[in-house]
């Protein structure tokens, strides 16, 4: 079967290393049965793959499945067809962001995180917590309050980020990578 290269399916197959293995999905449900986030996903990974094959691209990209994926790789190590499911989840997040079709704020979490990495070269847990929670879960953030305090008091949260020396070098590398990624 030739696939529309711009469909969700087509892009997984052409852009993702090992993505072509998705063609051999047996619909066995091993992934869906194994996933720790499965009960809270609106579609199990297996179901999502059936929807991808059926061309229901919009519904696929609006699904919370891949946002609830915690990258535990359990599905990947158990899939009887060796389909790189976790990587497909990453790729679907990527596609959903590009299509502007995401429904959760997990994206912002990831983007805040990445922003720190790009600025400092290191992750910055305290900054992440404040920036992310204050922007998205003012209430959740409050609940987090005592927890953050407890961690602070035990020296487990740094109030200032650590910065690596060669931030410029790192940024050059990342910018170059983005450029290469964009040229496809």
């Amino acid at each position, binding site marked *: 079967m030739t696939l529309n290269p711009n469909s969700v399916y087509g892009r997984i197959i052409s852009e993702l290393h090992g993505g072509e293995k998705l063609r051999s999905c047996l619909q066995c449900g091993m992934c869906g049965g194994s996933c720790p986030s499965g009960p809270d996903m609106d579609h199990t990974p297996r179901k999502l793959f059936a929807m991808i094959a059926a061309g229901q691209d919009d519904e696929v990209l609006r699904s919370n499945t891949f946002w609830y994926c915690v990258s535990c790789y359990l599905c990947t190590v158990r899939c009887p067809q060796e389909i790189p499911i976790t990587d497909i989840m990453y790729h679907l997040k990527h596609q959903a962001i590009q299509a502007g079709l995401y429904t959760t704020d997990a*994206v912002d979490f990831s983007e805040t995180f*990445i922003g720190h990495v790009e600025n400092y070269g*290191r992750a910055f847990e305290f900054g992440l917590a404040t920036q992310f929670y204050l922007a998205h879960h003012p209430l959740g953030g409050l609940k987090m309050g005592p927890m953050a305090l407890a961690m602070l008091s035990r020296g487990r949260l740094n109030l200032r980020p650590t910065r690596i020396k060669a931030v410029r070098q790192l940024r050059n590398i990342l910018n*170059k*990578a*983005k450029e290469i990624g964009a040229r496809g």
Partner: protein
Amino acid sequence: MKYAYYPGCSAESSASAYDATSQMVAAALGLELEEIKDWNCCGATEYFSIDSLPAYALVARNLALAGRQGTSEVIAPCSACYVNLKKVDERMGDYPQLNSDVNEALAAGNLSYTPGSVRARHLLDVICNEVGCDAVSEKVVRPLAGLTLVPYYGCYIGRPEGGFDDVENPQTLDRLLKGLGATVPDYSLKSSCCGGHMTQIGTEVALGILRGLIDLAAKLGADAMVVACPMCQLNLDVYQNQLNSHFGTTYRMPIVYFTQMMALALGMEAAELKFEEGLVPAGPMLEKWQAAEASPQPRKKKSKKALPMPEPLDGGDSG
């Protein structure tokens, strides 16, 4: 043997206890760790979701730096860092196009990396398989007798492409803890996921997962859960209070690093092992240990009618 050491971002903040005890234990076992100079964050699980090539390049920079320091193996105590390092190295080897793209990006920072030249190792792997559990237990001066410790590996050991232990039923930490003198029950959720970043974006989902993990450990009579990953520690420890108020439970399960427990058994002072960093206090567990005297385990009697039990595969000693 000399290893490059990749502490990971959490070493500087939330998991400084792990970092400190890892270095103490390594020194006691004669492992020479040389921190990668000016290493950067591995991107955790977040970077791959947004853009994959920069994510690969980010990790590859660390591998390149390790290579430049002249080491062929890098130790990561954090499982997520370990998986990222390993995955990037292996994928670059498997996919030539990816390899050349990543190297093109690295070149913008005057770096290069040859796949396969720096092997990522988890600290647990090096301790159990290079030093050896037997060698460790020979060094034990204060056995952990009297303590029931549940080994919790988390999901990243052996994933995604298979690592140093069985993916589903790993044994290394079990063997290590038994070698330290602890009682180690067969904890069937040992390689289940701790919820990862779910605690932050879908708290309810995560709390459910965490509850299952702690619940089974409690049922097995655990005095503590022993982990090998800062993310596992953070989720199980820091969210335990919230979980209790959410479900109306009363768990007080200390979540400790295996390096802390090793350090104890190797004779280091508890006060120096940063147990106080845990939100759930480890005090009761430590007191119990100090009070305990090694007492033999009661053996369950089998009925005459019982059918034979199959032997585990490679003579492992689970169950």
